C-alpha cells in the first residue's frame, strides 16, 4: 500500500522539481531503404519514417496524461545515413531533406542519424558524406548529425578529426545568420553509443532491431531538491540520496518506455537516465554541484563532485532497470544550464576545467560557444583531446562546439529554446596546426587487446 508521503513525493517531483521524461526516441532502421538512386532512396526513407513513427506524438501525449508526467520531446533516430548513401553519389542532401520533411510532418522536434562511423577508416563515400554535413545542416531545420571518430577498440581516426575541424567551421559559416546554429546540431564522438535517445548525438545503431523505443529520463531538479537540505551530511550520505533519487526516476522512465514501445509496436530498447539540464531555473546540473558544496561550478573540487554525482546516478539507474543504456550520467552543456551560463559569465569555468570534467561524466565539451575566428585545426585539437579521454577511459566523449561567426570572447550568443544562450569562451591561442595536419590514426590503446 502506498503511503501518502510517497504519493506526494511523486506529485511534488513533477509539480515543483521539473521531473519529466525528456524524450521518447524511436530508432528506425533505414537499411531496407537503399535504392539505386538518391531520389528513390529519399522517397523510401521519407515513407518509412513517416509510417513507422506516425503515432509517436499522440502516444506520448496519451502517456503523459495517463501517468501525469510531462513528456517533453518526441524524436526519431535513424541508421547512420552514410550507410545508405553509398550508391547515390552526390545525393546526400536529398536524403537529408526527406528526413527533415518527415520530422516536420510528424511534429517531432529533432531527427538524429545524419551520421557516419569512421573510427578506424573512411571510405570514399563516407568522406563525401562528411563533406555534405554543412550543407545538410543549413538546408534542414530538425536534422541532427554526428560522426564517430574514435573508439577504445580502434584508436582515433585523425584524418576524420582533421576533416571535422573544417566541417564545423563551414557549418557555422553556412548558418551564420543564426549564430552558427548548425553546429549545435552536430556532435563529434568517441565511443558513440548505438542506443542514445538524446540529441544531437542520437542514431540507430546497426546492431539494433528494426524499430526500437529508447527513453531519456531527466531530473536535475529532483536531485537538487533532494540534496539541498542536507546541510552537514557526509559525502556518503549525499551519494546515497542521489542513488535513491535516480532509482525512482529511472523506474518512472522504464514504465513509460515499456508502455510506449507496446503502443508504438516497437521493441523496448533502453532507458537512459541522464541528468540533462535546461536553461530554466531549477533544472541545472551546475546547481547540484553547488548544492554539494561548491561556491560555484568550476571551483576546485568540481571534478570530484561531478564524479560522485555521475556514478551515483548510474548506480541508482542500474538498480532500477535491467535495460539502462545510452549515455546515462550527468550532462554538462554550457548553454543549456543556467548555473553553467552564470559560471561562464563570471569566469568561474573555462574550457580546460570543462575538459577535466568530461573525464568523469557522460559526454563532453558540449554546447560551448567559441570565437568565430578559431582556426579549424584548433577545433580538431579539441576533438582529438576529448576523443583521447574517451578512448583511454573506455567511455563516450563528445564535442559540440559552436565557433560563432563574428563573435569574440566577451560576447554571447542566443540560440533560444532548449539550446539556450552561451558566452563565448576562450580557446588556447597556441596552434595545433602541425599536429592535426599529420593525419593518420592514433593506434588503438594497449587495453584494446583483450582477445
Amino acid at each position, binding site marked *: 500500500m*502506498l503511503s501518502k508521503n*510517497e*504519493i506526494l513525493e511523486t*506529485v511534488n517531483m513533477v*509539480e515543483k522539481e521539473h521531473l519529466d521524461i525528456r524524450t521518447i526516441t524511436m530508432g528506425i532502421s533505414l537499411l531496407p531503404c537503399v535504392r539505386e538512386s538518391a531520389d528513390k532512396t529519399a522517397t523510401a526513407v521519407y515513407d518509412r519514417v513517416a509510417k513507422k513513427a506516425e503515432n509517436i506524438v499522440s502516444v506520448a501525449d496519451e502517456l503523459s*496524461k*495517463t*501517468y*501525469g508526467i510531462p513528456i517533453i520531446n518526441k524524436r526519431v533516430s535513424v541508421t547512420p545515413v552514410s550507410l545508405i548513401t553509398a550508391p547515390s553519389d552526390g545525393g546526400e542532401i536529398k536524403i537529408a531533406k526527406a528526413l527533415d520533411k518527415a520530422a516536420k510532418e510528424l511534429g517531432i522536434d529533432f531527427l538524429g542519424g545524419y551520421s557516419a562511423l569512421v573510427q578506424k577508416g573512411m571510405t570514399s563515400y563516407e568522406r563525401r558524406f562528411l563533406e555534405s554535413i554543412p550543407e545538410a545542416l543549413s538546408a534542414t531545420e530538425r536534422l541532427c548529425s554526428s560522426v564517430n571518430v574514435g573508439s577504445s577498440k580502434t584508436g582515433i581516426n585523425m584524418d576524420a578529426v582533421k576533416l571535422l575541424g573544417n566541417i564545423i567551421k563551414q557549418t557555422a559559416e553556412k548558418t551564420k545568420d543564426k549564430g552558427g546554429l548548425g553546429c549545435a546540431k552536430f556532435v563529434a564522438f568517441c565511443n558513440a553509443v548505438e542506443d542514445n535517445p538524446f540529441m544531437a548525438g542520437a542514431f540507430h545503431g546497426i546492431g539494433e532491431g528494426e524499430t526500437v523505443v529508447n527513453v531519456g529520463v531527466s531530473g536535475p531538479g529532483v536531485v537538487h531538491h533532494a540534496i539541498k537540505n542536507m546541510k552537514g551530511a557526509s559525502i556518503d550520505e549525499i551519494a546515497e540520496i542521489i542513488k535513491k533519487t535516480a532509482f*525512482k526516476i529511472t523506474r518512472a522512465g522504464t514504465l513509460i518506455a515499456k508502455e510506449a514501445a507496446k503502443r508504438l509496436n516497437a521493441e523496448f530498447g533502453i532507458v537512459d537516465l541522464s541528468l540533462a539540464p535546461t536553461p530554466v531555473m531549477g533544472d541545472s546540473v551546475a546547481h547540484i554541484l553547488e548544492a554539494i558544496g561548491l561556491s560555484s561550478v568550476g571551483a576546485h573540487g568540481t571534478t570530484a563532485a561531478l564524479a560522485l554525482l555521475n556514478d551515483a546516478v548510474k548506480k541508482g539507474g542500474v538498480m532500477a532497470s535491467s535495460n539502462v543504456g545510452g549515455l546515462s550520467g550527468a550532462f554538462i552543456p554550457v548553454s543549456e544550464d543556467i548555473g553553467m551560463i552564470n559560471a561562464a559569465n563570471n569566469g568561474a569555468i573555462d574550457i580546460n576545467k570543462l575538459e577535466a570534467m568530461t573525464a568523469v561524466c557522460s559526454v563532453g565539451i558540449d554546447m560551448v560557444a567559441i570565437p568565430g575566428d578559431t582556426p579549424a585545426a584548433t577545433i580538431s585539437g579539441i576533438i582529438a583531446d576529448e576523443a583521447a579521454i574517451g578512448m583511454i577511459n573506455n567511455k563516450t566523449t563528445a564535442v559540440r562546439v559552436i565557433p560563432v561567426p563574428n563573435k569574440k570572447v566577451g560576447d554571447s550568443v542566443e540560440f533560444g529554446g532548449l539550446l539556450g544562450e552561451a558566452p563565448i569562451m576562450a580557446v588556447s591561442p597556441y596552434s595545433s596546426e602541425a599536429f592535426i595536419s599529420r593525419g593518420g590514426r592514433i593506434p588503438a590503446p594497449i587495453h584494446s587487446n583483450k582477445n
Partner: protein
Amino acid sequence: MKAIVSVIGKDKSGIIAKVSTALAEKNVNIEDISQTIVQGNFTMIMMCDLGENISVAELAGVLDKTGKEAGVIIRVQHEDIFNAMHTL
C-alpha cells in the same frame, strides 16, 4: 483500472463535495480517501477505481475543469507510476 487523484490548493469549504460529485458523475468509485492541511494548503489523496468507464486521460480532462472551478489543482495519475517509483 486504478488511479490516484491528488488535490492541492487553498483550504475552503466544499472541495471534497465538488471532487467527489465529479467522480460520481463518471461512475468512478472512491476506495480510499485521506485529507490533511499542510502549511495552510489543503491536500487530499483519493484512491479510485475507474472501472472500464473512463480512461485516466479522459478523467484528467474532467477533473482539470473541476479544479479550475474549485480553485485547486487536481491531478489524476495511473497508480502504476507510484508503484514503479516506490515499491520494489
